């Protein structure tokens, strides 16, 4: 105690009871109560946000339980779906969901990358680049049902001659082996590509912009052209982030409902041909939930919803972790998450 030089001087002049009379903290009862209450309220509401995800999982799982007990894992590879006979199997829907999303991804990745490169490189003056990026992102703001309406009246008639040509010239390939109807798997894939393009383009752009300028300068100083720099330096450095962008886009495609429901033809069959009609999990949920009465039918639909939920959850968690490795890009990644 005696060795403490700081404690000595004041304590000799002021006793601790003198100090307590000067109210340095300025906390009166009401303000302190308000402060504490506010903090707890914020905690409570933050907990609510977390609870929603848990609640959602529990409700869907619990409702799916009758169907899980009845069909077990066999549901996943069973092909029949008959409401009258109460026989339900998920395979045609899983097939449609996965194949249409794959088509979308194959189309959206190169186009999204091109947009990201054009809007992040200095091909164009800065005042053109940002509005261009914004216009591409604007597609994400148009409601899915309106894109579906456009799909029915514009995209299907536009793609029909192309589908006919594919069938007539390439029908020896199983992918194009059935006569096109108009709606079908290919149209659904194209419309999904349009809808996930903003996600792919916006996040890839952020990832590319986050790459240190020194890498580009070094590559240029060694004599590489712009495109050699892009292919050998920029893209390899951006791979984790670009993979994250593609995964987020995939998550969005898997869960996209209205536009797909309106153009895929809604026929539960497994056909190798992309020109054939198909069905997806979100589409069957949208079509049958409003009229589902039987407990087992509702249970089977809930089981499908659970599968879709688990699938998108896994894809999204993986994507968020990937994009976060690129740091600053994670901010916009959260904004362009799918609907």
């Amino acid at each position: 105690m005696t060795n403490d030089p700081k404690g000595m001087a004041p304590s000799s002049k002021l006793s601790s009871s003198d100090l307590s009379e000067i109210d340095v903290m300025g906390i009166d009862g009401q303000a302190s109560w308000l402060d504490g209450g506010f903090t707890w309220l914020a905690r409570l509401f933050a907990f609510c946000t977390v609870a929603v995800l848990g609640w959602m999982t529990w409700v869907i799982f619990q409702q799916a339980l009758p169907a899980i007990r009845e069909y077990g894992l066999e549901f996943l590879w069973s092909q029949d779906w008959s409401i009258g006979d109460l026989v339900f199997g998920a395979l045609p829907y899983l097939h449609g969901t996965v194949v249409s999303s794959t088509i979308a991804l194959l189309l959206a990745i190169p186009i999204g990358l091109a947009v990201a490169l054009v809007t992040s490189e200095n091909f164009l003056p800065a005042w053109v680049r940002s509005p261009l990026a914004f216009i591409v992102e604007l597609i994400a703001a148009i409601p899915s049902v309106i894109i579906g309406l456009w799909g029915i009246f514009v995209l299907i008639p536009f793609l029909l001659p192309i589908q006919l040509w594919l069938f007539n010239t390439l029908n020896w390939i199983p992918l194009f082996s059935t006569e096109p109807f108009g709606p079908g798997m290919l149209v659904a894939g194209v419309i999904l590509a349009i809808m996930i393009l903003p996600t792919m383009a916006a996040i890839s752009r952020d990832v590319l912009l986050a790459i240190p300028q020194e890498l580009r300068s070094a590559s240029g100083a060694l004599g590489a052209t712009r495109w050699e720099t892009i292919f050998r330096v920029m893209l390899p450095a951006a791979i984790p982030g670009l993979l994250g962008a593609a995964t987020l886009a995939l998550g969005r495609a898997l869960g996209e409902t209205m536009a797909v429901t309106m153009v895929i033809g809604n026929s539960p069959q497994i056909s190798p041909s992309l020109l054939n009609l198909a069905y997806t999990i979100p589409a069957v949920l949208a079509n049958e939930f409003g009229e589902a009465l039987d407990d087992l039918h509702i249970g089977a639909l809930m089981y499908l919803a659970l599968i879709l939920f688990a699938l998108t959850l896994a894809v999204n968690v993986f994507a968020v972790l990937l994009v976060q490795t690129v740091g600053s890009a994670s901010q916009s990644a959260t904004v362009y998450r799918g609907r």
Partner: protein
Amino acid sequence: MKVEDLSQPLPPVRQFFSYAMTAIAFLLTGLALLPLFAILIEILRQGLPNLSLETLVSLPAPIGVTDQPNGFANAIVGTLIMVGLASLASIPIGVMTAIYLTEFGKGGAIANSIRFIATVLSGVPSIVVGVFAYGVIVLTTKNFSAIAGSFALAVLMLPVVVLSTEGALNLVSNSQRLASAALGSSRFQTTWRVVLLSALPGITTGILLAVARAAGETAPLIFTALFSQNWFSGLQNPTPSMSVLIYNYANSPYVEQTSLAWTASVVLVLMILLINILSRLVTRNRLDIQ
């Protein structure tokens, strides 16, 4: 190596590669812009001619009746009510969650996991959120209702509000918080009078974007709020909305109904694009000033 080598033009192969890749990139970018303009032009071409005051204030006419005014006023009212209720629930919870993330729990493990869960929640497909609302409300009350629709929309809006508000609060500089604390304000006073006030434009923008998104959602409403041809008749009853009207009428064999779907699309898209472009301008101006 001779000095002349350094000033040699690129070999033709490398030059060609550069030009070809630039051309391909621009071609694909043009392709990316095509759908947006095709969609906007088609909506305006098909929907604008029928847009009149009559369509905004009258009920859908029965099929085959041509002498009655035909419109979708009931759907506009239904959308406003359900989006309004969803906002009332999701905005306070979302903003408070964001306040917790930036003001109280910043950097901590709890805040990081809450942010992660909000991010994951924003990636849940809207149809799954609809299924959730169906399980929670429709199955319990045995009735399709506006409440179920609002509940689904609120769950969809919540993560969007949280993440955009958090972004806006993070833009408030720390020196403002320190200055407020140095003047003797409590945490509540600093948050309420300083941080929230200066972040208000950003928060408003985020909320407007969430509202615009909710107004266009169809999948979570289609089997929770269902649809109705009549006026809104209470929160316990099936309620029409613009987006479900577009979906129901899109495949209709009757021209009156498909043209009504296009007209409703014009109203919905113009509103949503206006909010998006305005919020973009507001955010950009704020960033420029800083």
